[in-house]
């Protein structure tokens, strides 16, 4: 699987290269700014991309803007955004672009190699990988309807929103697939969502719900 990485900090980009090479990814290019990223995506047509939020020249949110731009130019391009901090606003912006996998993770998560690689593969396959902190922000904000869920249902909701499938959720919570299925049914019923299939659309439904819950109708 071929990867393009946009990361200006050499320590981190070489670390990522080392780690990804070891688990069988091919690094097509490592670039250090937004323009370079867009060019590399055009040249290499990677299977998945990894973008740091802060890039030169201004070290503000170039990475997010480059990622959004790349997804507009190449609909369906899988993008995993890494950052030293997470901001629900950025997650909402990334999710607003349609088609293809999207991920948004804290850089800290890279050190959990298995989970990170799993997230990267999920994004490459068109899935979603949202940082637990983003989900925590969203869940906290969504308020009342979420409060109606049981603690276990909230755990399932969080994992589902992060982009995990039923099997992984069952494994992480040490419960059966059947129990996960039942919890998900209850969650969708309590939140008033239409039951969707177990793929990316389900995640989007949950994230969209969390993202819009408690906001003004006009927004």
């Amino acid at each position, binding site marked *: 699987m071929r990867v393009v990485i946009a990361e200006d900090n050499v320590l981190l980009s070489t670390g990522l290269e080392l780690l990804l090479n070891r688990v069988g990814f091919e690094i097509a290019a490592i670039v250090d700014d937004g323009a370079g990223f867009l060019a590399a995506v055009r040249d290499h047509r990677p299977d998945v991309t990894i973008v740091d*939020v802060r890039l030169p020249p201004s070290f*503000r949110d170039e990475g997010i803007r480059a990622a959004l731009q790349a997804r507009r130019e190449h609909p369906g391009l899988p993008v995993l955004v890494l950052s030293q*901090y997470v*901001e*629900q*606003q950025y997650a909402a912006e990334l999710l607003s672009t349609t088609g293809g996998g999207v991920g948004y993770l*804290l850089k800290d998560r890279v050190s959990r190699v298995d989970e990170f690689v799993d997230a990267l593969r999920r994004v490459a396959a068109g899935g979603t990988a949202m940082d637990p902190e983003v989900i925590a922000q969203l869940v906290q904000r969504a308020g009342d309807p979420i409060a109606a869920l049981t603690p276990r249902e909230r755990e399932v909701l969080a994992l589902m929103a992060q982009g995990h499938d039923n099997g992984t959720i069952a494994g992480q919570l040490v419960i059966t697939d059947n129990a996960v299925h039942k919890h998900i049914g209850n969650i969708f019923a309590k939140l008033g969502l239409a039951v969707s299939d177990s793929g990316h659309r389900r995640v989007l439904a949950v994230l969209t719900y969390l993202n819009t819950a408690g906001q003004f109708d006009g927004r």
Partner: protein
Amino acid sequence: MRRSGGYLLVSLASGIATVLALPLLCVPRLARLWADWHHDRATRLLGTPMASRPAPRAAGRRAWAGPSTGRDLLWLPVNAITGVAFGLTALLCVGNLLPAAVATALWWAFEPEDRPRPFVDVPVTGWATALTLGPLQIILLTTLAYLCFPMMARVHARICLAVLSHSTAEQLADRVAVLTRTRADVLDAHGAELRRIERDLHDGTQARLVAIAMRLAVARQVLSDNPRNEQFLAELLRDAHEGTEEAMTELRGVIRTVYPPILADRGLVGALTAVTARCGVPTRLNIGDIERVPAAVEAVVYFAVAEALTNVTRHSRATTASVRVSRAADRLSVVVTDNGTGGADDRLGTGLAGIRGRVLALDGTVEIDSPAGGPTTITMELLCGS
């Protein structure tokens, strides 16, 4: 002309009132209110800025002390004399317009000895004198009023301000005192902030790194042991790994309190958009054209709004909130309101005290209006320099 005329007539009334209520007005607090009222109307008439009056509350507490009470009392006789003198002139001027009009039109209706006598004592003898003297008096009085009323009103207002305002030297001394105090506060707050960051890094991140380094060092030794304790090695590496994750989480927390990354990335507007979108209570953000704002002010506004909205979510039981940011000249004003149950108090939580501390440290002001039953409004004003 009408405005100055009104001013002069009110001055007359207040001059007479001063004489009548003299014993009452010698009470310092009433003298202060009386003086304040005159000072305000004089300032409004002259259109000069209102800043030159010494703070009434500070002086009110030490009733007889300070030079301002002396000024207030001095104003009583000055007001009585100038108010009556200027006001009476104006009254006579206006008051003689009516007799002149009557003299012109209705002179014939009076008995000869009762006929109006314009120009103090010139008798009206027929239409000829009536039609010349009457209009002439009206024209003269009106011209006089137009020319002299504004001038007289301004002179009265200036005398009022001269008596009641601080001298330039006193104003400067006041300002220096305020600046000295706020500068000391700023330095204190700044120092406290540096100490907090130092403590967070020292006790948190640095200690964790030391612990990680120790585990890794032990792990290297264990590697060369014979036989090697694999389980112990795995434990050491796991602890070191988890330690780095905790260190990163802590460091992220410290960075957030030093300068929020979203502020660096998106500026104040973007950061406030994010913080209001994140709020548990639906929050409307209304932000005008605020131009460039110093980084320190941006950070304080961000923290204050974030803290205020946290309070809204946790304590207010509000269903909506709003954040309004606007700028007039070098003054940035931030208003956070909610429709909750009110009763917010500085002394009950550290949140509001924290907001106050941060804003005061930049020489700003904070006003918290939160009656029991709500709603709550927090108003902050900060200077953006120039």
